[in-house]
């Protein structure tokens, strides 16, 4: 069984979900995000932010998570007609 993310990472998980790096947890099963999914999401966030891609919430990553920012997600949901939102470059 995949290892669910430990509860004390929920702040980062909520942040990653808020900004589109992690799909929302399954509301039906309440299934927590697997740690692999979170690691991959952290890498995606680090890549977008231009910080080293360590896959873990290191200091540089946590500092960004605490930085004031725009509420809109960085990764936009797929558009209704199935086409991915235009990715910038």
């Amino acid at each position, binding site marked *: 069984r995949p290892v669910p993310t430990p509860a004390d990472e929920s702040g980062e998980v909520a942040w990653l979900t808020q*900004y589109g790096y992690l799909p929302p947890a399954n509301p039906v099963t309440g299934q927590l995000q697997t740690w692999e999914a979170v690691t991959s999401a952290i890498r995606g966030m680090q890549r*977008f932010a231009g910080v080293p891609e360590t896959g873990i919430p290191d200091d540089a990553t946590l500092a960004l998570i605490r*930085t004031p*920012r*725009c*509420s809109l997600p960085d990764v936009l949901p797929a558009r209704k007609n199935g086409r991915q939102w235009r990715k*910038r470059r």
Partner: protein
Amino acid sequence: KSRGRRSAGLAWTKRNISWKVKTYPREARLGRETIRALTHYALKVWSEATPLTFHEVGGSSADVSVEFLRLDHQDGYPFDGPGGMVAHAFFPGDPQRAGHVHFDSDEDWTFRSPDDYGTDLFAVAVHEFGHSLGLAHSPSKRSIMRPYYQGPVGDPLQYQLQADDRTDIQRLYGMARPGSRVLHSTEKPEASSLLPDPPSLPRDFPEFPDRCSSSIDAVAQIRGETFFFKGQYFWRLTHGQHLTSLRPALSAAFWRGLPRSLGKVDAVYERHTDHRILFFSGPLYWVFKDNGVEEGYPRPVTDFGLPQGGVDAAFSWPHDRKTFFFKGGLQWCYEEAVGRMDEGSPTHTALGGQLPTPVDAMLSGSDEVYAFKGRQYWKLERHSLKPEKGYPRSIARDWLDCTGELYPPPSAPTSPPTGAKLQPDWRGPPLEVERCVCPS
């Protein structure tokens, strides 16, 4: 959702986009005029790179509507108090929310503050309007569309988009002027560049003057507000001496009946006997009731017993209803109550030898007079017209909301004129702005 709004997909199809600041933050450090001005300049950044133009509207519906809201405001993006999420805006393709721009009113919104102090409203506004026009977040550290707040981006009057952002927005709307769109033979015109060209701006609007580096042609207290005239334009200060807009308005568009061909005005004052407003330019003068010219004007200035060549400056005392005209080294005193020039006029001006003459403009407050010359002004004692200590000072800095090294620092720490001191008790009915036509 809103009449006439045609936003589709990732970009607006219309070129001339209206905007309005719908709500302001409660306890804000920034005044409303400042917030409106910063909104104007943040939109201007995008219009400089594209064929888009933006105009402010007073009505309820605007294409881009700016609101300062807090916590959960029912749009799916609740704010979270100071820090964290500071603002958001919705894309043109959003059927319900296109054009909505929300700033967290719990943030400490600042303007020209130190980097680590508060949240710079202009920088965030440029970012959010990028979303309103269809741009998503950018990973580029140089881009204004980077999701993280990175501090102020400098003077709103000087700020220009980085190349990445310019390229991205032009991909949606094409370049600023059809003439500058250089398409190489191999380059297929972008779909967006085939959009209908924007209506060209009327060619007869000369570039308007920069308030921070101009001298003044005339200045007047009208119904408690201060009007600074330069060329064909004017700036307006509220009763509280706040600039109503960083951008001047076209005089002929507001003062109905003033010829558009008029290059400049020499003097303007409010006549306290009937609250008419008089404009002087060369050999002619006009009388306005509110902002509409009265029948039978212009007339020659010789009506007052003035020389045919016109005047340099004028001001009128509300106390004794005397109006003083200045030309070169001479001054005239005109009795408004009886409509007659004082016998002893003209006399050598009392200004001579104390400040450079001829002056450009004069202004009377309740107990003081101001003389303007070049980019400086003096405060004069009411009767002797002697300059007070600590003058000259910078017009741009004290009256027209310019700061920074370009403008001579005040020679003495006297406070700039405040609304209260300049507030005559003789205000007539407020000037209602029926329509405001801006040059661009």
